[in-house]
């Protein structure tokens, strides 16, 4: 077969450069006297970290990158050898395994040890346990934790915000001042937050574009690349604003030309199915997984996973006028911090607004936060909307849990069911 030449968009090149620079900064951080903060992606306090001129490192990004580079399998086994159960979250095991192997990151460079462990965990209890394990691995490194309350009643109350702001003011900021040697500067934070606000507006517009038919982007497989900068360290930087402006321009151009999404094998020719997907992707076989969809002409028009770093479509933006309050609200506004009834409503809205033909759950063995209760959510969505649903299972970074033929078999059946349904509707 003649492989069509895949042309790289400018935004893709720009993103590559940004990530390369990020790793370079990391590699030279110690010599430049910059402090390193280990923290997690969902509900991260990147703006605050930047306000103290420190550099964030996200263990789960290392884990997923290790997964994509086929390194996670052996890391996980190494962690299991020292007593970590086969049953537990594989991000944690991958991270611990990486540390056991000298903390060499996914790109082959040594990741500098932390100067501060900032435990801000949103929507996942295992993060806390992960951090307890990290603390023991880095004895003596200062630790600070901020507890994000769950939206158990389906809303964020002023008391919840107050609880978080107090933690920021009393615990987090003093710890950061101490480690960085920099005094908290609210004006600087406000400036960063205004950039963050801009990127949030832009990415919101980007994830609205799949409402077009055909959709100009894949909001899941390509979406995970799009959320990269905003979720990991670039939110609140002018570079990110630049990147998302460029990306949005490119996508708007595609809409004008009536083009479908770009896949690793070039442009998708025909949009046959529009799907909403719930759950993170698999990283160890990411390309094969994606291919199963675009080969069938399936486009993901909206996904919950791309909202783990914030649900901007529900209206949240950072507010430079209320810096700490808006940091708190941001933390509570990540997808897995919403309760199940809220998650159902969000997904139903996506299915309706983006005119999806089907709803698919990719359930992750590792991630109880996403997975526990998903089957009930699915039933409810199927019942309320009468939409065809599908259910497949694998894992984040444990290659042992990605069964290609199993997933292919289920997806084929799912797509055939969808096309039958379409045919009947058309008759």
């Amino acid at each position, binding site marked *: 077969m003649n492989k069509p030449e895949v042309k790289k968009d400018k935004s893709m090149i720009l993103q590559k450069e940004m990530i390369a620079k990020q790793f370079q900064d990391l590699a030279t951080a110690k010599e430049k006297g910059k402090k390193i903060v280990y923290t997690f992606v969902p509900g991260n306090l990147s703006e605050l970290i930047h306000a103290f001129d420190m550099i964030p490192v996200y263990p789960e990004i290392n884990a997923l990158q290790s997964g994509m580079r086929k390194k996670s399998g052996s890391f996980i086994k190494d962690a299991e050898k*020292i*007593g*970590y*159960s086969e*049953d*537990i*979250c594989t991000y*944690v095991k991958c991270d611990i395994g990486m540390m056991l192997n000298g903390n060499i990151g996914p790109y082959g460079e040594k990741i500098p040890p932390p100067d501060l462990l900032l435990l801000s965990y949103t929507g*996942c*209890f*295992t993060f*806390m*346990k*992960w951090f*307890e*394990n990290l*603390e*023991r691995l880095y004895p003596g490194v200062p*630790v600070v*934790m*901020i*507890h994000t*309350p*769950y939206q*158990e009643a389906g809303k964020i109350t002023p*008391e919840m915000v107050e*609880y978080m702001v*107090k*933690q920021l003011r*009393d*615990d987090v900021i003093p710890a950061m001042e101490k480690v960085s040697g920099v005094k908290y500067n609210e004006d600087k934070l406000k400036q960063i937050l205004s950039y963050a606000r801009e990127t949030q507006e832009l990415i919101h517009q980007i994830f609205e574009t799949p409402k077009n038919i055909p959709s100009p982007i894949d909001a899941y497989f390509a979406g995970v690349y799009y959320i990269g900068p905003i979720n990991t360290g670039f939110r609140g930087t002018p570079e990110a604003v630049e990147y998302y402006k460029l990306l949005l321009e490119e996508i708007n151009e595609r809409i004008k030309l009536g083009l479908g999404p770009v896949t690793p094998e070039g442009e998708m020719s025909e949009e046959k199915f529009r799907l909403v997907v719930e759950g993170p992707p698999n990283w160890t076989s990411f390309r094969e997984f994606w291919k199963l969809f675009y080969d069938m002409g399936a486009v993901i028009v909206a996904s919950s996973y791309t909202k783990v770093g914030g649900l901007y479509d529900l209206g949240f933006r950072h507010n430079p006028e209320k810096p700490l309050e808006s940091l708190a609200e941001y933390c509570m506004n990540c997808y897995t911090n919403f*309760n*199940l*009834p809220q*998650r*159902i409503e969000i997904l139903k809205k996506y299915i309706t607004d983006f005119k999806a033909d089907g709803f698919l759950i990719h*359930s992750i*063995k590792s991630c*109880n*936060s996403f*997975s*526990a*209760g*998903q*089957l*009930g*959510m699915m039933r*409810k969505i199927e019942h309320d909307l009468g939409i065809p649903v599908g259910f497949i*299972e694998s894992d984040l970074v444990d290659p042992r849990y990605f069964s290609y033929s199993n997933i292919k078999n289920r997806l084929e059946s799912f797509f055939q069911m969808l096309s039958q349904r379409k045919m009947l509707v058309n008759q």
Partner: protein
Amino acid sequence: MEKLNQIIQTCAAIAYDINYTYSKNWKSKSKDRVLVGHFPIYFPREIVWACNGLAIGILGGNDYKEVVKGDAYYQSYICHIPRSIIDLALDGHFNGIDGFVFSSICDVMRNLSGVFQIHNIGKFSKYLDYPQNFKKEIGGEFLKRELEDIIQKITAINGIRPDIKSLNNAIKLYNYNRSLLFEIYDIRQKYPWRLEAHELYTIIRAGLYMPVDEHNKILENVIEEIQKDRNQPVDKVRVIVWGAFCEQLPINLIKSIELAGCFVVDDDFLLGSRWILGKIEDNTDDPLGAIVEAYLQKSIFSTSVYDVNNPKEKRLVELAKKRNADGVIFVAPSFCDPALLDIPLCQKECEKNNIRFVFFQYSENTGQFKPIKEQIGAFADSIKLWEGVS
């Protein structure tokens, strides 16, 4: 029949009844009584008692509930307890229970609260997000509001708003309950054969389904009985069983550990009943504040509590020393992230302190005990042998 045997039998009939008949009978005696189901592990039952209610423990279906619907809700890689709970709920076992409180111990329990909300099970489903910040003015304030929220939900049902007196009274009763439990553990420290671990488990568990003063009487009787000799002091090793956390061990599994040659001198079974180490102030103008203060300052260690300033593995080793234990048996439910993530930390600390340990996973409906018995037997033998040599 021996009095203690009788007590245990009575308790068993109450403790393992998945229709919660005893509690429901209590409720039926008066119109304004309520039942609040609470999930593992800790919940300040005092506040429900003060509202003329009974907080009852929802501990899953163990191996006596056939699970069909639950498997429809949970994938194979999620622990067992939420499936039996859903099965119980959908089969109507919870009818008559007014509301449910889920403690923030893990993502599975958190999401289970959502499943309850989706199905409108009970009049309310509250996820009680315990603060992981232990400062009075930060985490304390937050927790107090959470507890007030629960009280409001109960008041909305029966119209009873607890006053300072009723709260203080409830605190007194539960303080007494805890002190009796600790006394039993202390007696068993000296004479573990007088009351076996599975018997004690049954007695404590029954306390989750009856008024606290009734349970206090039972405990008083138990203490009286175990002052006397009962059973033979055979040659067994002294162990602490730790890690069980939320999903209940099958009672036969506890028995198997004992049959394999162990005295269980401490454990974390039904830890919620012994959560507060010491007394909650019972004579203040701010009883809710006292409950919160005790939570922040006097909680026992557990996997669900962030422990940076007081590492749990150190506290476990202390406990082992205090109980003069020969070893630790780590047990953890399959697919339980919190419990399983603690195990390597605790094992490391045990190694450092030359405390022997063994570890196995189980689930609430585990049916085969032979491999576990063999493992524990070998563990116990190795301890005895090792002690003989040294």
